[in-house]
């Protein structure tokens, strides 16, 4: 150790560098502007977690990279010097130190991360228990065509982000059924009798999306909401959130779903509550079940036919769905 000390910069310098690195890391952690706007109640939680991780990461990055660069300069080979470096095989306390510190960091991060995840509604035990109704074959016979197969319906928990601990047992204010298909999202409001190619939600209300997929895997991603959940054929999933700001924001498919996966984009429109009421009334009037026309518009109409009849799709919504290439 005594020999090693000569090669370590003086403690004052170390302290200064330490403070500078810490200050910069904290600043960058808070002011990175890497993430888009925050639109949901969960977004600030995720961003705080990210910022803290970014802060720690920046500090570690600067320290390690700084040490590497310093080492390369300070200990570079001088011409003519054919000797070897010092015979140091290790340093037990140093090794314990750099094992313990990362262990501590990742455990704290892990616990914090899980806690954030819990606050977001990741541990929606309520939703999962609610789904555990014993569904037996007899009951199933009456269900719609795509769910009639008894093999499908053992008890399956609903995966995704559900009710947050605060919301607890309260049912959501609005439920929307989301169906992913190549290459569009279809949104059905069972309680309102509306079907749409865009997702319209009221601001400040507790929304639950029931996500399914018709053909292949898709992933329903709201970047501004920091929420993503795969749409899985044969397995219902959910997302539950409160939108905190009005406006138009993208909906992105994040799971490779075919040639035009990149074009599978839609929009979430967050309305002020009174605006939303207007939207509902306009659309309930507009929902004109002119199905023949709607289906004819779709080139591969056969595949969609079941759904159009089942959902009462109208021409405009199908067109909206088709606008995506």
């Amino acid at each position, binding site marked *: 150790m005594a020999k*090693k000390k000569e090669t370590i910069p003086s403690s004052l310098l170390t302290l200064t560098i330490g403070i500078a690195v810490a200050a910069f890391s904290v600043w960058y952690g808070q002011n990175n502007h*890497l*993430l*888009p706007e925050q639109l949901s109640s969960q977004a600030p939680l*995720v961003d705080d*977690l*990210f910022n803290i*991780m970014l802060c720690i990461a920046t500090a570690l990055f600067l320290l390690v990279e700084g*040490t590497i660069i310093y*080492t390369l300069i300070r*200990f*570079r*080979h001088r011409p003519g010097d*054919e*000797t*070897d*470096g010092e*015979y*140091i*095989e*290790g*340093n037990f306390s140093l*090794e314990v130190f*750099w094992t313990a510190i*990362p*262990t501590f960091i990742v455990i704290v*991060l*892990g616990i914090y*991360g*899980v806690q*954030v*995840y819990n606050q977001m509604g*990741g541990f929606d035990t309520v939703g*999962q228990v609610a789904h555990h109704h014993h569904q037996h074959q007899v009951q199933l016979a009456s269900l719609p065509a795509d769910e009639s*197969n008894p*093999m*499908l319906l053992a008890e399956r928990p609903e*995966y995704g*982000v559900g009710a947050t601990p605060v919301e607890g047992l309260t049912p959501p204010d609005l439920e929307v059924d989301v169906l992913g298909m190549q290459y569009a999202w279809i949104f059905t409001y069972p309680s309102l009798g509306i079907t749409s190619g865009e997702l319209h939600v009221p601001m400040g209300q507790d929304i639950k999306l029931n996500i399914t997929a018709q*053909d*292949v*895997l898709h*992933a329903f*991603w709201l*970047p501004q909401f*920091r929420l*993503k959940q*795969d749409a*899985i054929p*044969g*397995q219902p999933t959910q997302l539950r959130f409160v939108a905190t700001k009005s406006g138009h924001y*993208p909906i992105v*498919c*994040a*799971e490779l779903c075919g*040639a*035009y996966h*990149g*074009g599978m*984009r839609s929009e979430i429109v967050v309305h002020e509550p009174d605006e939303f009421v207007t939207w509902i009334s306009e659309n309930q009037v507009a929902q004109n079940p002119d199905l023949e026309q709607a289906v004819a518009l779709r080139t591969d109409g056969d595949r969609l036919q079941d759904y159009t009849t089942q959902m009462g799709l109208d021409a405009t919504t199908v067109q909206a769905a088709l606008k995506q290439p």
Partner: protein
Amino acid sequence: MTSAQLPLESPPATPPPSGHHNHPEKWEWYHYFLYNVDHKVIGIQYLVTAFFFYLVAGLMALFMRAELATPNPDVLDPNVYNTLLTNHGTMMIFFWVVPAAIGGFGNYLVPLMIGAKDMAFPNLNAIAFWLNPIAGIFIGISFYFGGAQAGWTSYPPLSLVTNNLGQSFWILTLITVGTSSILGALNFLVTIYKLKIPDMRWDELPLFCWAMVATSLLALFSTPVLAIGLILLFFDINFGTGFFRPEMGGDVVVYQHLFWFYSHPAVYLMILPIFGVMSEIVSTHSRKPIFGYKAIAYSSLAICLVGLVVWVHHMFTSGTPAWMRMFFSIATLIVAVPTGVKVFSWVATLWGGKIRLVTPLLFAVGLLAMFVFGGLSGVTLGTPAFDLHAHDTYYVVGHFHYVLFGGSVFGLYGAIYHWFPKITGHMYNETLGRIHFGLTFIGTNLTFLPMHNLGLAGMPRRVALYDPQFEDLNKLCTYGSMILGVSILPFLINMIWSWGWGEPAPRNPWRALTLEWQTTSPPAIENFDEDPIVWAGPYDYGIDTQSFEEEELSVDEMLAEVGQEMK
């Protein structure tokens, strides 16, 4: 046990010529194109084949970047784009990094490093190699039929409904290389366990060999599970089974588990041998013992063990119950610890050394710099809360290219330069090597750094068309990829020119201490003309430096001296 007997006690006679050594004095060029059981030939076969596929897969990446330079799908047909993205990933993993690192350097170096004459099962070794060209033919056929288009993950149902013929041949390809990988892994374990020269203690085993032990264990335990997943997928596609068809009671998420049970450890398959390479290069060129030999050896095994139970972090947004998301999150974060230990140990090895910035070390340090970045972004992805946002975005693409390109490929380049004199018997050109490093380093960062921003801002991965707001950063990535494309030229020129006309290399140009440097460059057919002698640990640099200085003894002379004493 005969092995308890030290060879020093018996007269170190050259091995008696036995009848079954039926090989020529020296391999001719055409021997490298034929079935050959010499581990060195097989190693070179692996390396050259893998490099060919690297060029092919790299070209695919350039086409994809060309497509992504603009938001509209204007360069390639979207189906072709998906074929390229699927096969770029597949080939880079299964035809380049895994065969080059494990098959190539593993085969070439392990027997030399442990003082053996060959692998334990030379024929099995050759068979394992020749499965690779067969797999190459399969993937060629797959391409002919339009190629697999469902991503390298090939998740059903997409893989069930897209280009069945191309997908089926893709599956055969992977099963073939998987078999090759299992046979190779088995061979490494037996070789290291049984053929290590007896006077090399286990704690004198070069760290590359430790890394190969960990790698082999992983390959043995994870590859079969992928194989079964792919077989089931194959049956679903071709024989109407219902494993991944929800309408028949199947479950698409089961495939994801089977797939990632292998494919997450595959990440470690690609990086653990590289970690081994790192330890060799860093210690040798900084002329200093490796810092914390045991910590590095054990951390490889720790990564191997923990790495087997983290796979669900690829499925945080899929049909994954909450308890799994929690458990696998913690396990994932834990992997950062042994990895961090390695990184810190290498930095500490550099610290206080006499660092020679030759090309292998440049690549090693470049690896270190970028792996730190990739590792840190990996930790952020390990938390499910943040992963919900970042999963399947360009953030992930950026992350894994930092660890796989900045990590594995840099390591492979470093290893190629480091062992080039040994393998070919010629020195490479240092200037070209440095230019290669500079271009690669700049290109890598320019290509993959902006991807993090893109992903966080909302750009999903695997898209041929994207929101126009991301165009500027994508252009930057595309320019970076062009630099990467160009960076291959100095490397190719260097390799070809140096192999043919480079300055002849001495036995031990780096004055390294592992056993492979005790033999001629290139090594004789059965590796050692005389039995190698473990006269120092693999990293005992700086021991008795003073006496070296006085007598100015090189390692070669030391060796010769020791050899004399023996006689």
